[in-house]
């Protein structure tokens, strides 16, 4: 039960968005997808969820090509959290979370659990368009959590970019619990420090190419980051013995 990317290439007009990307995301692990803007992170994730049919190569979801799977069957295996939540109707938070079960059997228990996990019970009856962006992101994450099975695949594109610190922590803790429960978690992010603390594996992209893939501690090095991001980084030691990676001031 895994997500396997096999030699994916895709272009938008003349722009090569992805070039021969091959990588695996294993169950029970959190895999971070890193890279500068326009590196191809979102394109890669859209190929994984079957929203985009790559020009070459394929994505295998549990051994089957993603873009050939019937939509309903794919929904039972993969849930997606986009970068910008979008709901063009005045559904309540609870109703949005219920949409995650659209193709699946109704489950009040899964929905109640998801609302609780994302601290949404107090605003469950509020219309989605009236929420802050951070609240909308939590509701969208809850929808995805309500959707997937314990051993399913969760694909997220910067899911916490607008959340406050408390909810970023609780959301990342949730992702950890889901992964520990057998889910495959594939998450694109910009925050390198968060990637270091959360992700077991990393895929580092630059201009559509996979620069490196593997354990986070091996993929993230100062030299490699400087090469990809064009910015110097340095390790800063913390009093508790941990360390954070920050861009240098110069």
């Amino acid at each position, binding site marked *: 039960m895994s997500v396997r990317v096999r030699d994916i290439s895709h272009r938008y007009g003349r722009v090569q968005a992805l070039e021969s990307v091959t990588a695996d995301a294993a169950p029970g692990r959190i895999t971070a997808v890193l890279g500068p803007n326009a590196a191809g992170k979102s394109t890669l994730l859209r190929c994984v969820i079957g929203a985009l049919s790559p020009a070459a190569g394929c994505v295998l979801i549990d051994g089957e090509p993603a873009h050939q799977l019937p939509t*309903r069957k794919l929904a039972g295996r993969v849930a997606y959290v986009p970068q910008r939540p*979008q709901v063009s109707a*005045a559904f309540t938070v609870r109703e949005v979370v219920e949409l995650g079960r*659209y193709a699946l059997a109704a489950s009040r228990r899964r929905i109640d659990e998801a609302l609780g996990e994302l601290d949404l019970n107090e605003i469950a009856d509020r219309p989605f368009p009236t929420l802050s962006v951070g609240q909308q992101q939590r509701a969208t994450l809850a929808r995805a959590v309500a959707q997937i099975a314990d051993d399913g695949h969760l694909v997220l594109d910067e899911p916490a970019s607008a959340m406050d610190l408390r909810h970023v922590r609780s959301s990342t803790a949730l992702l950890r619990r889901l992964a520990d429960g057998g889910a495959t978690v594939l998450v694109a992010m910009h925050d390198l420090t968060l990637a270091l603390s959360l992700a077991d594996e990393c895929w580092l992209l630059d201009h559509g190419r996979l620069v490196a893939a593997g354990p986070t501690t091996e993929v993230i090095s100062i030299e490699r980051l400087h090469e990809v991001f064009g910015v110097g980084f340095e390790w800063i030691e913390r009093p508790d013995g941990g360390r954070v990676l920050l861009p240098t001031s110069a």
Partner: protein
Amino acid sequence: MNATARRHLRGLAILTALAAIAAVLRILIDRDPRDGVISLAWPHPKYAWVRWTALAVGATVGSGLATSGVLLQALLRNPLASPFILGITAGAGLGVMTAMYIGHLTGVTVASSSVLPALAGALAVMGIVYSLGQRRGWLDPVSLVLVGVIVSAICGALIMLLQHLVPAGLHGEITRWMMGRIPEDTPTASLVLVGGLSVAGIAIGMAMGPAMDAATLGDDEARSVGLALGPLRVWMFLLAGALTAGAVALCGPIGFVGLLAPHAARLVLGPHHTSLVLGAALAGIILVVGADVARQAIDFDAGRMPIGIFTALIGGPAFIWLLRTGRGQA
């Protein structure tokens, strides 16, 4: 029963009752031709068929346009979408004008009524918009709106061209058609066809309700929850187009119904599309049949006015009120 279900039941009960009242009033409203006195009375059998036909046409067209409005507002993710945004009305008008022009050129009456030419024009435009409104093989909301607006403009220009070519005495005919009407002499076959289309449209629309709910998510999200968005959009387009074509062929363009009825229903029922389709159909019946009741009573001694005047004068201020109170959110 949860709060949402209770809201739906109560809302549908209110809308059904109001639609029934409008229907009964249409049958009962009596204005004496000799002295203009208005009263409520059951019609004499000699002319009762006129009122029943008008009611059936009004209910058919009101529900058809309203259902089309719900489908299009969901398809295009635009609360201002209406059945006329895809150019179908302009296509129907071009069909009518073309038939008039051919009649003028040849001296032969191409069609004794405007129904068939309007239907032909509407369906032709549907085909054009369908082919041109695709992106990467699937219907795209933005492309549909753009193509619809452009096709509308082109049809409008062609209508003006044909108007220019026919004698001035014929200009009034297309102008009157564009105002919309409730034809009290509709043949039973036409009524059964368009009425059956409206009923089927409502049933299919309600069945598509859960899918339309999921379609309110972004494209990738909607697909990721298991929605076959491409085929759904095709169904929504075809159904909305067919309902609009039938309504416009029968009655000409009656404005505001397809725009306002969905919002009025949303105010009462909320955003769930299954109940929204039925609620909007009832709201469409209330608006069109209600407008027909009003025009029986108010004519300033100059004959009954086109129904489009009443739907706009009722619908316009009502829509502004909805906007100002911040209700009828999409």
